[in-house]
């Protein structure tokens, strides 16, 4: 081959410059896409009800009954037994569906895979591996129940004996 048929040679420095520019551009684009994807995982608007709320005076609750008053708004059941008031989370400990309170059978029953919980929150049927969680409940200065969902109590860790996990009445 003769020299004049060959394209103008690129200098070594020119080649490296181009290569660097190409890599920088490539990495920038990939990084941009990745950031976009990760950003996509976080919602633009987040509906977050306040984590603690007042739930009226203890007298609002009847002994032996499960109150579903705050189920939709805050995701809790408030139960009053003869000696105490406790607050149960409405999240099934199996996969997180919302069980229903069946008064006739005195149990919470999950519509997804059939887990059942007693009025105390203890699991007794179906696949749920542990009892429902309880939330912190105290009496506020104005005599109302003050429920704090940031603090939860798990039975299997022996936390239900914690004085904050129920309110003696």
């Amino acid at each position, binding site marked *: 081959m003769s020299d004049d048929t060959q394209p103008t040679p690129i200098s070594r420095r020119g080649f490296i410059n181009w290569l660097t520019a190409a890599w920088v551009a490539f990495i920038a684009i990939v990084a941009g896409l990745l950031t976009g994807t990760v950003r996509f995982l976080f919602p633009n608007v987040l509906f977050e009800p306040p984590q603690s709320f007042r739930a009226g005076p203890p007298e609002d609750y009847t002994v032996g009954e499960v109150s579903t008053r705050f189920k939709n708004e805050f995701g809790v059941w408030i139960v009053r037994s003869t000696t105490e008031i406790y607050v149960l989370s409405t999240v099934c400990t199996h996969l997180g569906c919302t069980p229903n309170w069946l008064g006739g059978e005195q149990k919470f029953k999950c519509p997804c895979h*059939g887990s059942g919980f007693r009025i105390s929150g203890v699991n007794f049927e179906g696949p749920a*591996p542990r009892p429902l969680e309880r939330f912190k409940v105290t009496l506020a200065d104005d005599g109302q129940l003050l429920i704090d969902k940031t603090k939860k109590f798990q039975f299997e860790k022996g936390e239900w004996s914690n004085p904050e996990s129920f309110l003696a009445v």
Partner: protein
Amino acid sequence: MKATINWLADPAISFTLIILVFFLVFPITDRLEKISKRLKIDLLWTNTGGLIALGVLVLFFVWGLTDENFRLIVTKPDNVPIVGLIFLVGFFTWLSMKQARENDNRMGQGGQPLEASDKSKVLVWPDLIYIEFICLILATVLLFAWSIFVKAPLEEPANPTLSPNPSKAPWYFLGLQEMLVYYDPWLAGIVLPTLIMVGLVAIPYMDTGDRGTGFYSYSGRKRAISTFMFGFLVLWTFLIIVGTFLRGPNWNFFGPFEVWDANKRVVLNNVNLSEYVYVFLLETGLPRGWLIREIWGILLVVGYFAVLPGLLAKTVFRNLYERWGTVRYSTFIVLLLMGMALPIKMYMRWLFNLKYIVSIPEFFLNI
């Protein structure tokens, strides 16, 4: 009649019946094949047999539709495809088994399989493409008609504090949802589905024999076909059907002619193995440490996976083990044992109300 069918639909009974019938229809050993032949079950794989089976199924549905509860469930827009699925799975199983049986008969008389006699070739264009094109048009027409006549099962906007009762997964996940009834989420939702996929991928590496390949045949490959069909028909399709038609409010079982009563009382009290051992057997109450508490269950599970493979290699699977060697055999047996763990656990739940064999909520480990 309806009461009988409702009773038969109870999972423990229907599942047992299905398993028994399955192994007669898809015999896995020579002995079973002989029994199946003697019972003339392979007549099912003839035109007459197929038509009769179809007729029975259609009659059942037509008769069933006269019942209000049956009609409610079967014509629910979500469930219509599953009715189609029953017929389609049945038809394609029949179609392939029919050809397999013909070939087996021919080969039994020293002949060649059907596929060998047909040496003629057809062209992709136009022969194949035309067929595909017509299928495409028909499928589109079907979808149009379907979308016009059956209302889309739309519901109100999602609400995290309200789960519909019953809450059903899309139909193709109902098998998984059934598994979730018996197993912890990490097992039924992650480990088992992964293993199903891994297992499917592994099939060609394990089943390398060339007997009965290249054409439809049952006798030449009965173990392979029977094992696969057990997984596909019994553990997957049947569970989808159960999940669609027999699971009602609160995920209770309902017979096909039963009212879906959200307040149906089902007395269930599921007990862990540890509670059986310590509370009922030894009457000492549950020990505090999880290791002592769960040791029996752990032993059982370890035994299942550590002892059983060796035992089976010496007995039932002796031939297989010698032909396949350790690696291939071990992979196969682990997959098989995992697969069998599902029906085993289902029976334990139905018969003994067993919840978990090993239950360590401290570490989110439940088996």
